[in-house]
């Protein structure tokens, strides 16, 4: 018989494909534009920047701004750039991320599988709490921390991050754990596992993706935090973002845009690395956490 046979022919340049990829590429340009500007600017010299076109590729590539941003940019008397705050940031971020995730995941787990009377009320309060601007809580928290005697310590800062990470993370974990089949949980109870054993031996190993998601959200949030880092610590433990703020906001004559951009990229590098390293898991995990509502 005659007539069409085999796969329907597809043209690479079909209307659908042009529309599809066209749109995606246009949007991608919008998303990449700032990154391009940042990178290009960070390797230009100041005279070149002053000449005007921020989109023009650098005529002469210099890594001076990067060195300056990392090692020699001054704030006040300290001329050691971002490097000064890097380890502080690491020291703040690691325990904050770990503790906030540990607590939020436990909350989510308890809310999903071990409901007790009133648990939902607390959770609702938490969700409403997610809408409160951080600044409003600044003073009450200062008082709470002062009364607890941990104001100005790393512990205090970790606690603050834990508290403010709690609403969203708890929501995320709760939704994720709710999607874990209830029978699994029942089977473990019959097997004699209690609250903690089920959490550590059953739930934890099953939920790595959502932990990665939580980690990304928290690493990004905490690493980029400026307000708490500066309010609840001291100069010798200031995180990198304080330095970044100082570099960006200390104008000496003309703004040194190249240094600013370099500093910006350097500061964003850590969350970006964490993000790229776990990008795939991120998408998968969010699915599990978010879709169930």
């Amino acid at each position: 018989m005659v007539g069409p046979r085999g796969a329907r022919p597809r043209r690479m340049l079909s209307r659908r494909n042009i529309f599809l990829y066209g749109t995606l590429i246009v949007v991608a340009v919008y998303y990449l534009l700032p990154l391009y500007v940042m990178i290009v600017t960070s390797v230009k010299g100041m005279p070149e920047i002053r000449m005007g076109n921020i989109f023009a590729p650098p005529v002469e590539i210099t890594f001076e701004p990067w060195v300056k941003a990392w090692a020699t940019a001054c704030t006040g008397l300290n001329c050691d750039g971002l490097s000064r705050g890097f380890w502080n940031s690491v020291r703040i971020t690691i325990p904050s991320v770990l503790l906030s995730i540990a607590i939020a995941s436990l909350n989510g787990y308890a809310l999903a599988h071990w409901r007790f009377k009133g648990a939902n009320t607390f959770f609702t309060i938490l969700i409403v709490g997610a809408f409160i601007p951080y600044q409003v809580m600044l003073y009450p928290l200062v008082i709470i921390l002062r009364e607890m005697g941990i104001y100005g310590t790393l512990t205090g800062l970790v606690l603050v991050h834990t508290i403010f990470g709690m609403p969203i993370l708890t929501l995320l974990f709760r939704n994720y754990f709710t999607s874990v089949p209830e029978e699994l949980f029942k089977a473990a109870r019959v097997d004699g596992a209690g609250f903690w054993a089920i959490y550590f031996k059953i739930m934890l190993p099953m939920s790595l993706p959502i932990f990665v998601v939580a980690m990304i959200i928290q690493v990004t949030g905490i690493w980029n935090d400026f307000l708490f880092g500066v309010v609840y610590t001291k100069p010798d433990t200031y995180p990198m973002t304080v330095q970044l703020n100082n570099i960006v906001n200390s104008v000496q004559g003309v703004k040194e845009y190249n240094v600013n951009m370099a500093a910006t990229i350097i500061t964003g590098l850590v969350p970006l690395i964490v993000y790229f390293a776990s990008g795939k898991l991120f998408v998968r995990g969010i699915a599990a956490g978010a879709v169930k509502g």
Partner: protein
Amino acid sequence: AEIEVTHWWTSGGEAAAVAEFAKAFEEKTGHTWVDGAIAGGGNTARPIMVSRITGGDPMGATQFNHGRQTEELIEAGLMRDLTELAEKEGWRDFIRPTSLLDSCTVDGRIYCVPVNIHSWQWLWLSNKAFEDAGVPVPTNWDEFVAAAPALRAAGKIPLALGGQPWQSSGLFNVLMVALAGPDVLVKVYGDKDTEVAAGPEIARVFKAAEDAREMTQGSNVQDWNQATNLVITDQAGGQIMGDWAQGEFQVAGEVAGEDYTCLPGLGENEIISTDGDAFYFPVTDDPEVQEAQLALASTMLQPDVQVAFNLKKGSLPVRGDVDLQAANDCMRKGLEILAEGKTMPAVNQLNTEDTNNQLNDLFVEFFNDTSITAEEAQKRFVDIVAQAD
């Protein structure tokens, strides 16, 4: 001991100046200065400092604009009483004008160390800009206004103004002093005299502000020193800014009188307002820090330190008995005016921050929104004055 000092002096001249303090302090006393600079100006830094102090984990010393900002902290007993030291060293004898010390005094006790005098009352002009426009460098406000169209025609912004709210209200206050006189300002802000505020003198100032608003169109910058930079690079004719702007000219290698001109009191009413910075020392129970605090307070007022600091900062020393050989043209002008005793209190000393903030909001809106008439703005101005305490 190590003593943590917080401040928001992070721009070029400022950082150099504060380095003088640190150097002198460390050399003379053997204590260590831990620098706690927070960029972004007082508005970013102040809440952080206050939180630290109220949170019970204070720094050893901290910069504040002296004035009413710290009243409550002092009343709450969070600031260290320096009266003993002051009496021992005889601060009242050499600090000039004495009003500086007064604003550090609450109930007869002294709580801060004034370190410099900054006057708001300056107009900075770019000689080259006027040359390019083909008009002579003006010598007073009216000439400046008259020269504006020529500057425009030459593609320059007549008057540079940054977007930060305090710059707008500062500009207005300077206009008020220049055109209505310091007494009017004291009446309005000090006595909260609404009649004066609603009166014709202030109305004239608002009219002038309208002119100024016209002249500022086109300066798309945010920070004050970016605005100054417009003057330095001759893109703008002038800027009304405190004498801290001088530091920027210096860093840029410009010479007073040659490259730029300064007009105290806008050339209308030569006067120095005694704004300035002061250091406070929060109460601490660490005896080593306590000792270092006194040492620092004392160091800051020593003549050589004052000279070194103020030269870098572009401000005037708080002692009348120091020799400022190295001072440039503009600074000398300031010193002369100061020596003549033509001083007036700073707005900060008269208004609470709340009132200042309301004024900031009013004027930043006024200077950015050409649809607000001088009359409307004055009406709102009167309301703020009426509410102020």
